[in-house]
């Protein structure tokens, strides 16, 4: 009886000991900062009030009335709407091609995936170059199409679209690999049976490939939406969120608020809002996962 107790205590100590190093770093840089931010979001702390002043939910109320914050949130929503469906559709087409193509299979995989190997900051340089008036390939194309000189990044109407094009270029190849994995798992005899029944390729695509990759679509959609909040590095190089906040995104705005305006309380409130959004998206993911992936 007591021997069993000692044995169990030793096993507990061993288990916790193994987890401890990870737990220490997670605690310091995930759990503690989260709690600290949640607390700070309830205080007013900026250059005028160096000593934190408790304001309850005042920061959040102020956020809802702040036109810049609402503008940035709207930008982020458009950024997501612009990138998510387009990059998913492209990723699906790419995977369909790279999965079955007789020739050009490796070429397709490399050509579509390589943007993910380039740092976002370098991607920003590349696309800034493409968009530079008079010089850039895309700037010239746009000028030629519209018949006048355009500055795609300088115009509030086109700047977000220009960012979306870049994001699609970067992301589609990443999502392609998940579709590739899903398509490889579809039993081949399903297609054989379908073609024996005289089903056309189009029908097989509609009845077999698309439904069976549905869990992947959900999974990819969640990652894509999360990335719409995370991918902001390019703003430092390309626009600084301008002109007139037309291209600013949430994480970038938090950075500005925190490190340029030193408004810690508001920055914390926005961080809380962002984490809540991301958790909501992850909840969707867990929801979808339960049906599509089973652990042993």
């Amino acid at each position, binding site marked *: 009886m007591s021997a069993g107790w000692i044995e169990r205590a030793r*096993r507990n100590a*061993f*288990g*916790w000991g*193994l*987890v401890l*190093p*990870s*737990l220490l*770093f*997670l605690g*310091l*840089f*995930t759990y503690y*900062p*989260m709690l*600290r*931010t949640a607390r700070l979001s309830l205080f007013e702390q900026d250059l005028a009030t160096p000593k934190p002043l408790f304001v309850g939910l005042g920061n959040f109320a102020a956020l809802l009335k702040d036109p810049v914050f609402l503008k940035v949130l709207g930008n982020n929503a458009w950024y997501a709407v612009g990138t998510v469906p387009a990059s998913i559709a*492209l990723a699906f*087409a790419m995977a369909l*091609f790279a999965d079955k193509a007789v*020739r*050009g299979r490796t070429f397709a*995989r*490399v*050509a*579509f*995936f*390589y*943007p993910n*190997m*380039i*740092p976002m*900051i*370098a991607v920003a*340089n590349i696309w800034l*170059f*493409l968009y*530079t008036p*008079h*010089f850039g390939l895309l700037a010239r194309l746009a000028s030629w199409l519209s018949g006048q000189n355009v500055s795609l990044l300088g115009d509030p109407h086109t700047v977000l679209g220009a960012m979306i094009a870049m994001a699609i*270029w970067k992301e589609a190849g990443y999502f392609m*690999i998940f579709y*590739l*994995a899903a398509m490889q798992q579809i039993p081949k005899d399903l297609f054989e049976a379908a073609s024996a029944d005289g089903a056309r*390729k189009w029908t097989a695509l509609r009845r077999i490939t698309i439904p069976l990759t549905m869990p992947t679509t959900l999974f990819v959609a969640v990652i894509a939406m*999360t990335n719409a909040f*995370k991918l902001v*590095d390019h703003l*430092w*190089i390309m626009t600084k969120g301008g002109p007139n906040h037309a291209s600013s995104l949430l*994480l970038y705005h*938090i*950075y500005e608020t*925190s490190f340029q305006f030193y408004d810690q309380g508001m920055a*914390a409130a926005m*961080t809380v809002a*962002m984490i809540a959004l991301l958790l909501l998206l992850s909840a969707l993911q867990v929801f979808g996962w339960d049906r599509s992936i089973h*652990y*042993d």
Partner: protein
Amino acid sequence: MNNPVLTWGSSKRARRRSAVRRLRRALLTRGGWPSAAWHALMLAFGAIWLVPFAWVVRTAFQPSSEAAGSGGFGAWTSWTLANFAHVWEGAPFGRYYANTALITFGILIVQLLTVTLAAYAFARVRFAGRGMLFALFLAQIMVPPDALVFSNYQVLNQMGLLDTKIGIMLPYFASSFGVFLLRQAFRQLPYELEEAARMEGCSRLGIVARIYAPLCRPVYLSFAIVSVSFHWNDFLWPLIVANSDTNRPLTVGLALFAKSTESGAQWSYVCAATLLVAAPLLVGFLAFQRKFIDSFMHAGLKG
């Protein structure tokens, strides 16, 4: 009918006809002309995807005087390495390289250790609070470090580690994602292996080091590829932590360099610098394309 010229002519026609037929078959057997059009379309997409990078490569190797006038077009015959030399001397890229390598591999080495221990605990040790701890680890996957950059900055400030390389590395020393990845792999190994080793008098840590880790080498490689790619390209966190060239990694150095050059005449230098920063991972990817793609596939599916 025995005219040799005529037979020669008809056989030529027949040969031509069979060649056309063969070409047709190659293009069309997999679904007729829609399939051929589909191939052409997707290959064109692939080509379009390569254009931005190809253009940057071209500009990087073009004499800067020429690039200023033509913006990448113009004479395709003149190539130079002068831009790279200029960039290498214009900013401490050598130092940035060393910093990035140190940070990236420093993180990886510590991660391999913490991740292995925790993964083994979650896979094979039954201890009180395991389920609760596991859920706590899950939370970290849901809240990406990017969202906590500003809060982590405060913590680092309290620790007095701003503007240090260890400060840049510290938040990444634990990886829930790695723990999950390895836990799955460890659980798939037969338990009999461990029992047999224990009969032989091997300690549990010895078992992890001598049985579990070596048998899961492919999983470690996948994790390493994803981790290195992520930290090599990371920008926001090192940007706010590092304040001096002694600690800045490549990405931050590149951003500073790109901002210090404003005029179009200097695009050749920016392109050269961009290539310098992106090259190591790109070369690795081109060389081990399949392994890289597989790693990211597993990372996404299990992380």
